[in-house]
């Protein structure tokens, strides 16, 4: 591992020394930040505690999940279900956008028909604005219906909402036939339990809000709900921990001694670009890797055991919850927290342990 730029501990004794050099780097910063946050519940709690102590901005790497999915939840409200309900009850799975198709094929939520309710009819699938993508590993009865492969997602959702409400539309420049829109609207209305699957990465908050309004409108006549593609790198768990700890979702800034939520001011990439952040602690036990923009600030990186490349100034190898040590993580399929036993235990420090040491080291400097 000699190819690393930064210092890296070689054992428990050197961990203390490395943490001290990390503490020096952070202690002199005016506005530190803690990013990535790919870690278990204990790790996020430790990060928020450290953040409050040093007045840091804290955010998770799953920014789209926060700025689109969670934003629309607070803007307008959403109807959601679990993967299990979707699999067993859903007689129409509506995949909206290419991300939904990719996830439905990969996450094995729909790879069997779900046999819990014998009264459920056959399972249909409707692809909306998926750009030609079709699910490869879904259990489907009949053909996959398709609408608006060539249209921007926001536009095809708007057209569907209009026709569903019986309102007129103009001809779309892409030449989408109104009868095709009406047929899709009818198919959705005819479902007994429809499930819209969507990936927030395919949307901005306006388009996602529109999709949620479509689902709400469908509930006037039948039952319809949504299943969002889960946030990457434990983003949902990190935001839940933030909600019960700070009262709000991420990002939060604690520069004034109390947590404030602000998507724009505390956007790490923006703030680093604007020269507002002068030290970064990157937590990547579960990933992701250090982003390009981190190169502009002094960085302490907590990376998972075995990560080969890291350009941070101080690099600390940590264990991976559920692999090298036990941890509490959200289970995206069950949509709950779960204690996960280690699969291959190793004597590596956890994120919580390192951040607590870091917090203690900074206190010592201040004393």
């Amino acid at each position, binding site marked *: 591992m000699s190819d690393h730029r930064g210092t890296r501990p070689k054992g428990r004794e050197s961990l203390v020394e490395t943490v001290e050099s990390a503490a020096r780097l952070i202690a002199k910063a005016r506005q530190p930040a803690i990013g990535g946050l790919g870690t278990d519940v204990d790790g996020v709690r430790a990060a928020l505690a450290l953040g409050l102590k040093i007045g840091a901005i804290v955010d998770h790497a799953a920014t789209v999940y926060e700025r689109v999915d969670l934003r629309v939840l607070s803007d307008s409200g959403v109807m959601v279900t679990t993967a299990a309900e979707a699999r067993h009850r859903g007689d129409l799975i509506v995949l909206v956008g290419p991300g939904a198709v990719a996830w439905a094929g990969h996450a094995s939520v729909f790879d069997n028909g779900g046999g819990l309710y014998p009264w459920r009819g056959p399972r249909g699938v409707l692809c909306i604005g998926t750009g030609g993508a079709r699910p490869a590993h879904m259990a489907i009865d009949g053909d996959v219906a398709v609408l608006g492969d060539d249209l921007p997602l926001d536009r095809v959702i*708007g057209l569907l909402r*209009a026709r569903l409400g019986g309102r007129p539309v103009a001809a779309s420049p892409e030449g989408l036939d109104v009868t095709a829109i009406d047929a899709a609207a009818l198919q959705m209305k005819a479902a007994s339990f429809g499930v819209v699957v969507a990936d927030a990465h395919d949307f901005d908050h*306006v388009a996602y*809000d529109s999709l949620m309004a479509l689902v709400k409108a469908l509930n006037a006549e039948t039952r319809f709900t949504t299943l969002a593609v889960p946030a990457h790198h434990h983003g949902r768990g990190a935001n839940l921990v933030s909600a019960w700890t700070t009262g709000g979702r991420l990002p939060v800034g604690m520069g004034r001694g109390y947590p404030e939520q602000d998507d724009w001011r505390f956007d790490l990439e923006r703030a680093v670009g604007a020269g507002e952040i002068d030290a970064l602690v990157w937590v990547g036990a579960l990933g992701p890797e250090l982003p390009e923009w981190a190169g502009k600030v002094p960085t302490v990186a907590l990376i998972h055991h075995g990560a080969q490349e890291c350009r941070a100034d101080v690099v600390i190898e940590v264990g991976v919850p559920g692999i090298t040590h036990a941890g509490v993580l959200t289970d995206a399929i069950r949509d709950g927290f779960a204690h996960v036993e280690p699969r291959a235990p190793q004597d590596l420090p956890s994120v919580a342990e390192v951040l607590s040491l870091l917090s203690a080291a900074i206190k010592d400097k201040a004393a």
Partner: protein
Amino acid sequence: MAALTFTLKAAPPERLDLSLLVPDKLKDLSAREIERLGIGTTPTGVVVGDLFTVSGTDLTDIRFAGGSDRFDGVGTGLKGASLHVDGDVGAYLGRGMKSGKIVVAGSLTGPYGATAATGGVIRVTGNAADATAASIPGAMAGLAGATLIIEGNAGDLLGDRLRRGVILVQGSVGALAGARMVGGTIISAALGRRAGQGMKRGTLIAGTVEDIEPTFVFSGSYTEAFLPLLRRWVASEAGAGFAALVPQVAQRYRGDMASLGKGEILIG
């Protein structure tokens, strides 16, 4: 009485929250007390006196000599006073403003200028960033009754969830102008893509609209008495240059049919 003036001494080393520097918050404070008000956003504890020289006592006329893209919250909740910034400002200019007048001789470099402002007039001589007059995440309304005048261009999401009030933009506007708006008016030379997407009520007026959404339905030429009345009002509020943005005859599109469909886009 001389205007209460905050003269910027040095470039701010961090983002500043200037929401305290409005008459309601300053009225019982001496100059020394004002200088000790915290305006920093990091543990460093930056106070007014660190960055500004404070002079004058007239709380109805507040001036910032010098601006910065790190000036957040200027004129928050302003009521009945006049506020002038000689330079750029950051986010949340005039947030929740009730009445009075704000002039920024510069640009809005951050989002959410005039968000939830229910009254008064804000004039910006430069450009406006994305999400100006837009609702902050989780809020029901963006601009909510005030008048916002932008002499330059505006970015994307201008007036997202606009509730009430008028936005005038001399130049062009980015994508998603008036998205999800429930009332109010946006008048501009040109609107970008996805204009009015999700709007329920309200009016967008522009010389051109890029790639108008098919959920806006053409409903004829519009020559009602309303347009000359509006032009006269715009001339009195913002000047003849802005009044020229209001057409004599407009092509009217109703929408957004995806939403309630009681809004309109007038192109002319």
